[in-house]
């Protein structure tokens, strides 16, 4: 087991290097730092000195890979590649293009993100599984058929509609909760209820359908027939056998996204003015702050790989048939 985890972590390193090279190519090779600086300073009448100083302030004034003017290790160290890409491996995210410490911002903003994402996930999971079990109990009847059609309809609505509609209905017309904003501590709840509610509603369509198909796949297996022929009731088969076994794929599906919850939801956070990592990313994209985007890409990748490793471990914990090599 420990060997396996070690192996997986080792396997993550080439992937991280690959991601790093890819982002480096995208951000520094496709467009040179000078061109990015020119964009930020406004295209017209920008002098070379202005570009120089803009780059110097943000540490883009080095050559890409080799610094000929330095000696020793500094030939490699005083380059954009080392400063901006390699340092990510030490979790040194540097400063954003607007001059803020990215690491500090991320630490601050990750908790509001989690405060929305975790309740949404848990409540959504419970509601989706309940609905799915309900439909599976009434499988091949009108209830099931209408339920599935309803799910497809829910799935076909744009996420923006849920957000805009929910904000308008609940915050503006009914005035139950504030439209947007955030507060520290317990006060945060009134700001969090609506985003969580909307995230849950948005997930019902696809979630319920997905879990329903998982349950249906399980229900066709032989052990279910055996259980039924033993004379067990439909309800007991459904809860004691089908539900337990279907929990394995459900659990692994949940575990893989657990670390990514820190990244938050881009759209929901930015609509509701939650100071989380999702709105942080959106703001960075909209103000073309590439340093933040680069840091988020790297962070996202690490969290994703971490999620995959967690999934494998959770597999062995819940399913004794699986042995990791």
């Amino acid at each position, binding site marked *: 087991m420990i060997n396996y985890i070690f192996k997986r972590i080792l396997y993550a390193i080439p992937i991280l290097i690959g991601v790093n090279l890819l982002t480096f190519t995208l951000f520094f090779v496709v467009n040179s730092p000078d061109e990015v600086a020119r964009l930020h300073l406004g295209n017209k009448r920008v002098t070379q000195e202005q570009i120089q100083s803009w780059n110097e302030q943000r540490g883009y004034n080095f050559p890409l890979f080799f610094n000929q003017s330095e000696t020793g290790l500094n030939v490699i160290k005083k380059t954009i590649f080392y400063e901006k890409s390699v340092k990510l491996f030490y979790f040194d995210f540097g400063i954003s293009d607007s001059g803020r410490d990215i690491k500090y911002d991320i630490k601050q903003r990750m908790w509001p993100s989690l405060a929305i994402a975790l309740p949404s996930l848990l409540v959504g999971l419970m509601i989706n599984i309940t609905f799915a079990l309900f439909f599976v109990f009434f499988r091949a009847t009108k209830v099931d058929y209408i339920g599935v059609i309803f799910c497809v309809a829910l799935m076909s609505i744009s996420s*923006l509609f849920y957000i805009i509609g929910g904000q308008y209905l609940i915050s503006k017309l009914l005035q139950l909760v504030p439209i947007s904003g955030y507060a520290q501590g317990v006060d945060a709840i009134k700001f969090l209820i609506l985003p969580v509610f909307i995230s849950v509603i948005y997930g019902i369509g696809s979630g319920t359908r997905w879990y329903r198909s998982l349950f249906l796949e399980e229900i066709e297996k032989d052990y279910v027939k055996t259980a039924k022929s033993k004379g067990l009731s439909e309800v007991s088969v459904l809860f004691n056998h089908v539900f337990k076994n279907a929990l394995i794929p459900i659990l692994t599906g949940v575990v893989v996204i657990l670390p990514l919850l820190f990244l938050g939801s*881009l759209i929901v956070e930015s609509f509701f003015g939650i100071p989380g990592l999702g709105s942080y990313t959106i703001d960075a994209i909209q103000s*073309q702050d590439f340093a933040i985007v680069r840091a988020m890409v790297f962070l*996202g990748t690490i969290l994703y790989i971490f999620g995959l490793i967690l999934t494998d471990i959770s597999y062995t914990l819940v399913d004794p048939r699986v042995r990791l090599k």
Partner: protein
Amino acid sequence: MFVFLLTDIFFYIIIFSIGLYIFYVRKTKDILETWKHVFRSRTGIISIVVLSFFLLIAILDSIHIKEKIYNEQTESFSYESEIKSVLDIILLPTYKNYEKSYSSPFSSNLYSKETIILENNIERRVYPKLLYKGNHNKYASDNTANILLTFIISLLKYFFVFSIFYLFFYFRIIFKSKNNIFIPFKLNKVFLMTLSIILILSIFLYELSLQYYVLGTDKVGVDVLYKSIKSIRTGILIGTLTTIVMLPFAIFLGIFAGYIGGFVDDVIQYIYTTLNSIPSVLLIASAILMLQVYMANNPLNFENIYERADLRLFFLCMILGLTSWTGLCRLLRGESMKLREVEYVQASKTFGLNRFSIIVRHIMPNIMHIVIITIVLDFSALVLAEAVLSYVNIGVDPTTYSWGNMINAARLEMSKEPIVWWSLFSAFTFMFILVLFANLFSDVVRDAFDPRSNKNYE
């Protein structure tokens, strides 16, 4: 003169390949049987008709022309700089005039009050009348009566035009039902019903929009219905072009990795795991941001605003495709690995068939169902994704008609009192209809093609 934008050409290629596929299916018996399963279900046939209608609009909107204008002073012909599509020419009477600003659906005046100076120098705050529509009822002065009459007249027009067509169609089915895929007559009713409803609705909408702004006007007074219809092309293009772009990568790399294995497998697996581990929104955002910088710094390459917007749409599809091929590639790799060990593949190997022929003859046809399922499943997700990306400013060009841009523009007007709801409403409705039928269609297709699907319970 015909103008071929980059996305047009790719769209033609898509249509052409759909045609080729249909031709191929009609010749191959077992795939034809599977598709018949789709056509036999009521949901399947309804969604096919609706989607084809959307596709038709997109095709009409993809044939672009520049109009010739005669210059009297120099006595020579020149081409307009504006590019129009065939759809624009068909719809021209409904959208050619612009109002001043917002007006609500079916209203006869503008949405906000303006100060008007009367003859005797008295200033009055009134709702100005609309200039071109809303005050020109054709059939009756009362609005409700007029709409009703318009509906009856469009019904009559519909019956007049299409009775001949239906007679022809009816006899064709009776006499030449051999190769027809709509064999059971009961379903033909569904097909004809859906088609008639769509046709009646579109004639009705056309007639109405000659007299009213059916879905109101936007900030600069453009008909919202026209904008929504124009957005269909963008939506469909993003849904289809993206998959077409990624398909070759996914199929070839997937098969190579699965069938050849070894070092090739390792490399391909590494590539897609790396791409897959970057959260897709961030990857798309980075790529589009860099494209924006490139386009801003090299404005000379993109002189024409149409070409510029078009190129951005094309690159958006490319980038979306590059991020989404990994899932399909992994599925195909697994399937080819399974197929490699199957007896008939082993047999052809011992007979001395080379790798290429085995892949083309035995592997490709047996993974096609996965490809088909993925294409139809991805379509709806991509249409929805466009709106979200436009919201983050990394979607299509702001000058392109798209539902995402409509939502983005209308969102800022949410705080107005009373609320300007019609732009949002129409964008969401159109998107909902397209995505709903795409989802229903993908359900039916998956049931037909997926051997593991829970057929008993559908």
